[in-house]
């Protein structure tokens, strides 16, 4: 099936599918993205779920969405404003209209805009008729009616027909973007292969939508996003949470340490637990604990017993784990704590993303309690940062807190598949059986790392725990000098990891007028406007941090290399506070957004231009 109509080439297109929770928008969006990926577009997707699983039908609270940006160049984010919005009911149109750029295309299921649904979503007049959508290209498709008619020969129940409205809408979008339906059919067959009737229904609805779009003239021209010039290799689309899970599996295989996950379900981190529970074939032991505390404590037990031990959570769960992180610091055991951040405080906005747990990760424990803190910055690089977190934690016998966020965890992008054998080696400091010189807190003089003596090993029986111990021998001690020394050793051990880190990079020139500093999940949304300004010849650079505690060794030099520094964060200024305490001589400006939303290109471009103009 090939679309013969004329089309406009576009570098990138942002599409958002929105509807009621039950309207199948996630599936429509995923199929669209996978088809684009097979064609060769780069992409970034982001699902936008309501907090309630079953919010009342047709209400604003029940709107579920899936946004994707596809491009012929590297795509860094799901995009701010959509070029195409697919809205399956009035409520979804109402909540999402503000995200459509003027002149953009809006496709609606006209059948869903009845009096009752309009009222439920708070419309006093019908937006399809009252002229309020005149600045957009509106496609009113009688999706429900067409779906029903097209399926009449299949003798399908009204309910099944209703459920394939999403495919009908996807068909329209597929035509608009000149997508190859055969690829989408293949994905549908993978998904519904065991249910021939459902497969047939979905294929019919998809084709009907495609043909409808081709037939109606109102549609005007269509778009084509050319292939992206990607580096040679094998690719797949991956979400940050799955990438995180796989990074740990890779680290386990490469280090020879069995993988253990102790975790308790919490939005938006649960996907990591779900993913690893499915990979028992690789020997991973997944323990769904009775609570967050048991999640981390079981991981500490598994770590003592020689496993690569992980616990996964989100903000409130990290609070509950604080005491146990202290135990891991004190016992100097490897442990990775993943915090998929969400908007806080307290329960906050569980389905919205934020970067507001940084200070908790750095300082949120009793006593002098240093742990490594690092952050992933794209869905795909969650794989590499999970791998590196595991490597650091085992090689340096320390807990590592890996920060991602809901935006990374649920977002997806293309991932160039590596070979496990090409990943950096991991060599945990395992103690040798019957080593008579073994002592629980004897250290490597260079790295200050103690050895890992695993139960079952002959000749190494020892006890550790949360009480302060003497150095080397590990006897319980309240000796004043010993305590001060141990506090410093633990601190220095973590600081020394900086020597092993890659230097902090600047994207752009090594000096200039304005350095934008950021960390974690905002890399993509900041990179886009900075690159655009660089193209205009502006002297702007971007330093995006993945290593936070310790910071890379050249951090101060990087921060001093530009005339102005602005630190942009989705919180009230936590990283900038940390930088101020580490490097107080540098003067920092800050830009903070705490709305449960990512940064938008528009707002940042305006901000950076203003800062570049003022002396």
């Amino acid at each position, binding site marked *: 099936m090939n679309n013969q109509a004329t089309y406009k080439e576009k570098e990138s297109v942002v599409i958002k599918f929105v509807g009621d929770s039950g309207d199948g928008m996630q599936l429509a969006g995923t199929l669209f993205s*996978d088809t684009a*990926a*097979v064609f*060769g577009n780069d992409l970034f997707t982001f699902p936008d779920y309501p907090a309630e699983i079953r919010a009342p039908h047709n209400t604003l609270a029940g709107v579920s969405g899936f946004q994707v940006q596809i491009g012929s160049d590297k795509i860094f984010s799901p995009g701010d404003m959509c070029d195409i919005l697919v809205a399956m009911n009035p409520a979804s149109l109402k909540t999402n209209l503000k995200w459509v750029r003027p002149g953009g295309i809006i496709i609606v299921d006209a059948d869903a805009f009845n009096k009752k649904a309009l009222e439920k979503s708070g419309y006093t007049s019908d937006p399809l008729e009252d002229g309020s959508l005149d600045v957009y290209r509106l496609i009113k498709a009688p999706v429900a009616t067409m779906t029903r008619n097209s399926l009449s020969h299949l003798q399908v129940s009204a309910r099944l027909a209703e459920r394939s409205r999403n495919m009908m809408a996807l068909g329209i979008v597929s035509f608009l973007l000149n997508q190859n339906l055969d690829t989408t059919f293949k994905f549908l067959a*993978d998904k519904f292969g065991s249910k021939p009737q459902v497969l047939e229904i979905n294929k019919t609805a998809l084709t009907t939508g495609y043909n409808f779009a081709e037939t109606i003239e109102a549609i005007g021209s269509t778009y084509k996003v050319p292939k992206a010039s*990607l580096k*040679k*290799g*094998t*690719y*797949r*689309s991956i979400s940050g949470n799955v990438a995180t899970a*796989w990074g740990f*599996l890779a680290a386990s295989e490469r280090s020879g340490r*069995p993988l*253990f996950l*102790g975790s308790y379900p919490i939005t938006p981190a649960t996907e990591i637990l779900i993913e690893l529970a499915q*990979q*028992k*074939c*690789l*020997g991973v*032991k997944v*323990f769904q*604990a*009775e*609570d967050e*505390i*048991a999640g981390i*404590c*079981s991981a*500490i*037990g*598994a*770590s*003592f*017993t*020689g*496993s690569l*031990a992980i616990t996964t959570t989100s903000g409130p769960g990290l609070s509950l784990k604080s005491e*146990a992180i*202290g*135990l891991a610091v004190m*016992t100097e055991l490897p442990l990775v704590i993943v915090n998929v951040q969400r908007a806080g405080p307290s329960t906050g906005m569980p389905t919205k993303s934020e970067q507001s747990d940084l200070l908790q990760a750095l300082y949120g424990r009793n006593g002098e309690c240093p742990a490594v803190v690092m952050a992933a910055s794209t869905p795909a690089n969650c794989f590499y940062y999970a791998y590196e977190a595991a490597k650091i934690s085992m090689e340096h016998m320390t807990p590592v807190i890996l920060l991602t966020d809901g935006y990374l965890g649920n977002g997806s992008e293309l991932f160039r*598949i590596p*070979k*496990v054998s090409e990943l950096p080696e991991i060599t945990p400091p395992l103690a040798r059986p019957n080593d008579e010189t073994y002592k629980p807190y004897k250290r490597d003089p260079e790295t200050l790392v103690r050895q890992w003596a695993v*139960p*079952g*090993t*002959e*000749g190494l*029986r*020892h*006890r*550790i*725990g*949360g*009480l302060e111990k003497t150095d080397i021998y590990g006897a*319980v001690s309240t000796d004043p000098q010993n305590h001060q020394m141990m506090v410093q050793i633990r601190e220095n051990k973590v600081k020394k990891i900086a020597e092993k880190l890659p230097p902090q990079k600047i994207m752009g020139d090594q000096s200039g007028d304005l350095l934008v500093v950021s960390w974690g999940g905002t890399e993509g949304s900041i990179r886009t406007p900075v690159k655009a300004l660089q193209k205009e010849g502006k002297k702007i650079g971007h330093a995006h941090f993945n290593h936070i505690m310790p910071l890379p060794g050249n951090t101060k030099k990087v921060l001093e290399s530009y005339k102005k520094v602005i630190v942009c964060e989705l919180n009230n200024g936590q990283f900038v506070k940390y930088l101020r305490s580490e490097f107080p001589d540098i003067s920092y400006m800050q830009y903070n957004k705490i709305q449960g939303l990512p940064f938008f290109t528009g707002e940042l471009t305006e901000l950076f231009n203003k800062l570049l103009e003022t002396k």
Partner: protein
Amino acid sequence: MISNRIMQSEEKLTKEDFVSDQMVKWCPGCGAHAILKAIENVFPEIGYKKENFMFVSGIGCSSRFPYYVNTYGVHGIHGRAAAIATGVKLANPGLSVWIATGDGDSMAIGGNHFIHIIRRNLDVNILLFNNQIYGLTKGQYSPTTPIGSVTRTSPHGTIEHPFVTAGLVMGAQGTFFARVPDNNIKLMTEVMFEAARHDGTAVIEILQNCIIFADGTHSQITDKDLRDDFQLHLKHGEPMLYGKNKEKGIQLKGQKLQGVIVGLNGVEMEDILIHDRYEKNPGIHRMLGKMEPPDLPVAMGVIRSAEFETYDDMIEVQIESAREQSDIKCVDDLLKSGETFEVD
């Protein structure tokens, strides 16, 4: 898992193999000393290599235990021993894992982990030092302190209904429960041996005397001249008899257990209940566990040891069958699974 245990150790172990070099710092006269002795008696006998013993504890007087016995050990944080031990056992099911905990550690701050490890029937042994008081923090009431007790935080008497440990354990679907007084090392040693042999979570409640803050809290049961009348020593397959001359017995009357005298009021020997510790239905076990003076004696010994699948076995079985069934044999396979595409 018995298969892990059988013939692990070829060398003959002795008490000395488990004596630690640390000074034991419990108060002189504390009931905990007897528990340590019993462990030193039993560890050489249960067939594990000495490197395959693991002790885990939380916080409290009981929880200093790992320092006093020469095994691998983790002295954890308050209430979390069961959770830490879960990770230990799952990471290496071949270990003999022991938890030392107290009434506060296991049933107050750690109550959640305690009931869940029992519900999962993870193959570990829990030594529950029940002294009905908080010792390490110097004398506050615990979840097992008898109602009305005056302690430092209940100057007018406690107004909390205490847990009966056996009731809690069986309510959580416990598969093994035993009780011993701290002044009967022989029984304690026997019971620990049985716990080690049981596949699943074995809870041993030790009625432990805290000589400093709750001295004599169990004396109505443990005193020399009272114990015959107020302790029922259960033996599998034998009638439940107690009293100085075993003249008293336990009879099931209606839905209740009653103490009766054999030969009096027409009570015959065959009216006395026979102990079946392997019975899967916990009904009688639960009633036995909850017996208390003055009407009934306190049941001692192994009250329940029913056979059910263990969590640690089942996780291994699932992993094995997933390994056999899946085409994904390594992470490279996983990375390439599902939809991928090539760029040249």
